[in-house]
């Protein structure tokens, strides 16, 4: 499969995998923000969501209820913006109803991931970002195996500052080492919350642990992203049935505070993969 996969994905310049041992730390949000920042920087970007039992990407990009189309050359990914610079593929687009559960054991998940890699016509992309479920199991082993011969640029590891999250994320770092997936760096998400009433910064989930862990493992610390309730709000607005171009996620996002923070992180990642 290696050869054909390499040819099939030849139009993609960079592949980045977003990983975390821990659930709910913001892998899908980071994937989305990285994609938005890259698009804003003039790149063509694709997102592949391999979280098969809990796909979040369609909702995060305001694409609930969209369907993929089958063309003669394969599946056509769903575009998220007017200018067709951001496209994505998720199992969410293949379900009858967004409430359907996908109750699959490993082998079936592996087959689906393989099909996503071989059957989606991504065309020319500057970046393909892969969002994953938490853990170190079938999806992770499979994606690392399938992509091995085409040398993905590496993994961005997401953590939150709490000890419970860090404990699991340390496992993920060791997973990357085991499967020889380069680590681009660590992002500490949900790092601190500023009370809108008194400006006091509460470390809701404590703080700093991500940076210390990056140091200990000798990998780059890419930065902190604060807790910002506007993220959830923006996502909901872009999913609103009456969403207009005004409410296009990318527009709202590039006007937000998070964009300023995340753009710096994006620059670091871009510098890492392009040098």
């Amino acid at each position, binding site marked *: 499969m290696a050869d054909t996969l390499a040819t099939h994905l030849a139009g993609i310049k960079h592949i980045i995998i977003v990983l975390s041992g821990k659930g709910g730390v913001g892998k899908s949000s980071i994937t989305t923000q990285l994609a938005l920042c890259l698009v804003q920087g003039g790149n063509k970007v694709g997102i592949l969501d391999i979280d098969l039992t809990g796909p979040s990407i369609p909702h995060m990009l305001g694409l609930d209820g969209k369907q993929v189309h089958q063309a003669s050359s394969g599946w056509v990914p769903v575009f998220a913006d007017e200018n067709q610079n951001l496209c994505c593929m998720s199992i969410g687009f293949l379900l009858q109803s967004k409430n*359907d559960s996908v*109750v699959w054991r490993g082998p079936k998940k592996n087959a689906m991931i393989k099909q996503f890699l071989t059957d989606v016509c991504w065309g020319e992309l500057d970046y393909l970002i892969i969002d994953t*479920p938490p853990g170190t199991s079938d999806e992770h082993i499979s994606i690392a195996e399938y992509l091995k011969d085409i040398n993905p640029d590496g993994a961005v590891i997401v953590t939150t500052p709490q000890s*419970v999250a860090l404990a699991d994320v340390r*496992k993920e770092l*060791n997973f990357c080492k085991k499967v020889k997936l380069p680590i681009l760096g660590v992002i500490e998400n949900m790092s601190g919350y500023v009370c809108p009433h*008194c400006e006091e910064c509460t470390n809701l989930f404590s703080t700093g642990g991500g940076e210390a862990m990056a140091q200990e493992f000798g990998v780059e610390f890419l930065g902190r992203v604060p807790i910002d309730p506007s993220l959830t*709000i923006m996502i909901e607005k872009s999913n609103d049935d009456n969403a207009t171009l005004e409410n296009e996620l990318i527009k709202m996002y590039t006007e937000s505070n998070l964009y300023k923070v995340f753009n710096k992180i994006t620059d670091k990642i871009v510098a890492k993969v392009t040098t």
Partner: protein
Amino acid sequence: MAVNEKPENAPEHCPGPSTEQAGKASACQGCPNQNICATAPKGPDPALPLIKERMSSVKHKILILSGKGGVGKSTFTSQLGFAFSNDENIQVGVMDIDVCGPSIPKIMGLDGEQIHQSLSGWSPVYVQDNLGVMSIGFMLSNPDDAVIWRGPKKNGLIKQFLKDVDWGDLDYMLIDTPPGTSDEHLSITQCLKESGIDGAIIITTPQEVAIQDVRREIDFCRKVKLPILGIVENMSGFVCPNCKGESIIFAPTTGGGKKLAEDEKVPFLGSIPLDPRIDKLTKSPQDKYFLPSSPESLHNFLGLQTSIKH
């Protein structure tokens, strides 16, 4: 049994890969799985009667589930365990089947503990006389080791937890799960089918991204006929410790857990606010009993306890 009996690539009249007919039926001719199905061991799983035997001394079995990651399943499981075991006449077991991301040892202040092997099986790690805990976290030689296991190996461990652990007589067994609807969830429901599961407590957070995954989990429960005890909404708003001002961090744009419970016609058990102190209890074991100081939050836990009991 399984929702998932027939592989996707199997023909329409697939008899099911675990049946006697598997690989030999006329439908199997030309099926890509024929070889595997014809040679795989058949018949009822020999572990099942052993599990049933072991589980006969456990009165109530409760699963803590959520389609979404990081919503507080493990935190809630441990709180519930502590709350139950406050009554020294109640025997409680906590079983962590999150094989790749076990959090229970850390959350319950048991980092670095090991399980012991005895004649009657593995013995759980005890927080106190009436609260035993089992997790893969107690079996790793280095806590940072990644458990890089595919489905079948995870399922094997879950079976072992059910049949080889000497739980003793338990009033409650609380089972913490990873997010999703995959191997672990299918295995635990299949293994405990005969022994009977009281039901699942479903944890969500208020925002739609989480609610969406939780709806899928509810769909899963219905497919496998697992009763739902109720929904708990965690991380529902935040009270600043400095100014006591309230703010919403994860906005319940579609009505949150309460609306979900109404829509799905299952009980709503209550909401738990975001509280920065929760992480602290994982650092100082003497604080293990995190009984929230506000009477309302305390009521949430205790109210739950009573409503499950009867």
